[in-house]
């Protein structure tokens, strides 16, 4: 009944079917597509391939750090240049460090969340048929593989991949071989891609919302993706400017940053971290939005403190631009300036705590369905708390000076912008997979994947805090050369073994993903009984998203377990008109 009722209620809206022709050829439909859903899947799959590359590099690093000095004949046979004489080449190690960080931050987490989920969810959740600029959207995606080619090409040019780390600090990055130039070009192109994408996300969210979808009714995923795009718009140009100047230094003989010619490397640090710290939130904010959505849906409870969730998102985004100096406490900053940056850094704990307590309140006394997506969302909260607490320690100049550039920092940021953001990606993938591909993922495999990943992450990154406390520097190739680090050998073994468990668990995910994509059981339109608009569309949604007219929105997106609802109804979707509410559930309308 409700379906018919909904259609009747929509009768006053313009019907768009027929105004836009679905592309028929394979190339226009799947390769050079302008459909936001296809572009989202292109972004997601490409970024997952990059995650595999970045993860593989991490495994190689853990081989070296777990058993430094040991010979690996098998690896030598596979990669003779990287493992000369069976031992990892130090230059290759530092190239792996740089490319692992670059790939995971830029080519996986940022692109999966801001490229993949933003593309898929924004038009569907606001009731639009596509992005505001579909062709620009396609260009945004295709710049991404171009950037990948430049980045990966650095492995194959003379001198290999750059060894200056993902922060590319001069003067080291001024002196690195050709690979560093390719790295800079790659990052510049990627920033262009992100800007093109971000312009689409912002304009689409502000202009193409369907009837009734006020900003105060936006799902939290759209809110966070929208704010993330705004953060990117203000942050990416700083890195683009810095990258251009460094390219000039390297190929034009200028000395913007190179101290050998009178340049100032600290200027690079200012520009890099003006971009770099907001980048942390470019990665984590969308994950926060996904987790809020997944928790409410699977806990069958309204998101606690919706307005505060939106406010804290805006507060985090704003504060992210005035904290960059905390990355430079050890660069000779004046104590007064350091205190100021400490205050702004610690202030971020307030909106972050608001979010955390709201998630806990959302799941408190809920009827949580522990699906794989829900497990990943709960796991995200755990990782975010752990990583956030160590952030407070690093936000203080007095303690940061001790922990700076040690494994304590590595443990901290891997919890927050590595593992927590990764859990956001997984929560989103398991949650929206049925909508993306019209099939269900295997829940049993998903849960095995979750537990191995969760334990693997804690086993890998938690002990790193102890390594840092013991004084083990980050980006170190042969820590065993330092006598005072003799006691950390066991910890390094444990970390490496945990990392291998973590890496192996992802093979289960890869199998589940591709098997379910083609062979998984057919998904219903709304398998999780969720309230947001995308679940009103068929699974997978057709070209143009909506069969006939766009949906109309009648309420906020978190109307779960309402006390007023009839018996057996635990959710009232956004698209359901009020006459249907009274009878929702009796004919499956609410679950449609």
């Amino acid at each position: 009944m409700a379906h018919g009722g909904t259609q009747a209620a929509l009768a006053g809206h313009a019907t768009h079917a027929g105004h836009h022709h679905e592309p028929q050829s394979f190339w226009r439909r799947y390769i050079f597509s302008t459909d936001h859903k296809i572009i989202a899947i292109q972004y997601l799959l490409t970024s997952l391939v990059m995650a595999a590359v970045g993860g593989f590099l991490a495994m190689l690093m853990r081989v070296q750090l777990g058993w430094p000095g040991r010979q690996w004949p098998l690896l030598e046979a596979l990669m003779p240049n990287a493992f000369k004489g069976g031992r990892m080449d130090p230059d290759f190690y530092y190239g792996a460090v740089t490319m692992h960080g670059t790939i995971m931050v830029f080519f996986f987490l940022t692109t999966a969340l801001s490229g993949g989920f933003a593309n898929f969810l924004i038009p569907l959740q606001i009731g639009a048929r596509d992005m505001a600029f579909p062709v620009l959207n396609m260009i945004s995606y295709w710049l991404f593989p171009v950037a990948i080619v430049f980045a990966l090409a650095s492995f194959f040019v003379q001198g290999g991949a750059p060894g200056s780390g993902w922060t590319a600090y001069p003067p080291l990055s001024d002196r690195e071989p050709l690979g560093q130039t390719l790295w800079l070009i790659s990052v510049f192109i990627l920033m262009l891609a992100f800007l093109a994408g971000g312009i689409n996300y912002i304009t689409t969210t502000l202009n193409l919302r369907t009837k009734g979808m006020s900003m105060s009714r936006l799902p939290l995923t759209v809110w966070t993706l929208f704010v993330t795009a705004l953060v990117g718009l203000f942050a990416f140009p700083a890195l683009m400017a810095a990258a251009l100047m460094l390219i000039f230094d390297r190929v034009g003989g200028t000395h913007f940053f190179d101290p050998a010619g009178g340049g100032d490397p600290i200027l690079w640090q200012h520009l890099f971290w003006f971009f770099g710290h907001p980048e942390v939130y470019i990665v984590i904010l969308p994950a926060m939005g996904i987790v809020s959505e997944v928790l409410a849906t699977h806990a069958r409870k309204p998101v606690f403190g919706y307005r505060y969730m939106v406010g804290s998102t805006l507060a985090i985004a704003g504060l992210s631009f005035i904290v960059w100096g905390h990355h430079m406490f050890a660069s000779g900053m004046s104590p007064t300036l350091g205190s100021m940056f400490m205050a702004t850094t610690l202030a971020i704990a307030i909106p972050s705590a608001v979010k955390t307590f709201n998630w806990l309140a959302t799941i408190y006394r809920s009827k949580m369905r522990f699906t794989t997506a829900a497990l990943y969302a709960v796991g995200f909260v755990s990782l975010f708390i752990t990583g956030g607490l160590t952030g407070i320690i690093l936000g203080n100049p007095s303690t940061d000076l001790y922990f700076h550039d040690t494994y304590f920092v590595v443990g901290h940021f891997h919890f927050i912008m590595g593992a927590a953001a990764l859990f956001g990606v997984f929560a989103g993938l398991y949650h929206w997979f049925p909508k993306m591909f019209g099939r269900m993922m295997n829940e049993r495999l998903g849960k095995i994947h979750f537990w191995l990943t969760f334990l693997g992450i804690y086993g890998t990154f938690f002990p790193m805090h102890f390594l840092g406390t013991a004084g083990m520097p980050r980006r170190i190739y042969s820590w065993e050369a330092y006598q005072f680090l003799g006691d950390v050998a066991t910890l390094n073994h444990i970390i490496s073994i945990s990392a291998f468990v973590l890496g192996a668990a992802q093979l289960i995910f890869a199998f589940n993903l591709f098997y379910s994509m083609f062979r998984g059981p057919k998904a219903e339109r709304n398998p999780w009984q969720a309230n947001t608009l995308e679940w009103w569309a068929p699974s997978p949604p057709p070209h143009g998203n909506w069969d006939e007219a766009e949906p109309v929105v009648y309420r906020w997106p978190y109307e779960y377990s309402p006390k007023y609802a009839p018996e057996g109804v635990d959710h009232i979707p956004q698209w359901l008109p009020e006459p249907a509410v009274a009878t929702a559930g009796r004919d499956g309308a609410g679950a449609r």
Partner: protein
Amino acid sequence: MPTTTRKPPRTRHRLRRQGAAARPPVPVIAGRRVDTPGRIPPNGRGGGGGWGGGPGDDEARARAATMATWMVVAAVTLMFMGFTSTYVARSAEPGWARQDLPPLLWWNTAVLLASSVTMELARRRARKGLVAGARRALGVTTLLGLAFVAGQVAAWAQWLAAGVVASGSTHAAFFYLLSGVHAAHVAGGLGALLYGMWRLGRPGTPAQMAASMTNIATYWHFVDVLWLYLFALLLW
């Protein structure tokens, strides 16, 4: 579950005003909280989809295009703020030496200013529906834009001929960097001008033409003002 009939909420009134299907008052469930959290404005601004034929679509697309133009302006401004902050910091260091800029830059500046005038002429003509006149003015703007880029290249050639290279001094390095990146943005603007000439040849209402021209003009005037700023910075 008790139910009551009550006056339809504000949501319904707004929807009706905006052309949604009118519906009679309906039985609703007491104690419901469909608008949680409270005081939500009932309707979004959405025009109803990413493409299609409705007037709402055109309006939404025009708004989106204007917004996108301003975002490009914002992003480019921020990138040049990055350059400027480095310039200011470096110029305060000991050993900073400013060199005399090529005199040709004054002529180039005049050419760019003239192009802004013709751009404005094109925009106003498009708004009045004078398509042919607008295309002519856009053509002149394109030629002036090309002349500016050629003039900048000639200025670099003059400096290079005089032995002033980017690696020679930081001021020279900034000149080549700032004018080069700016010229690249002008080249992007030339692409927009060509698109504008093509757009004026396509069917459309004067309002659509004017909206398109306004966005192109916004960007063109922006690169003009940006150059004035950069020129002043390099002279400083």
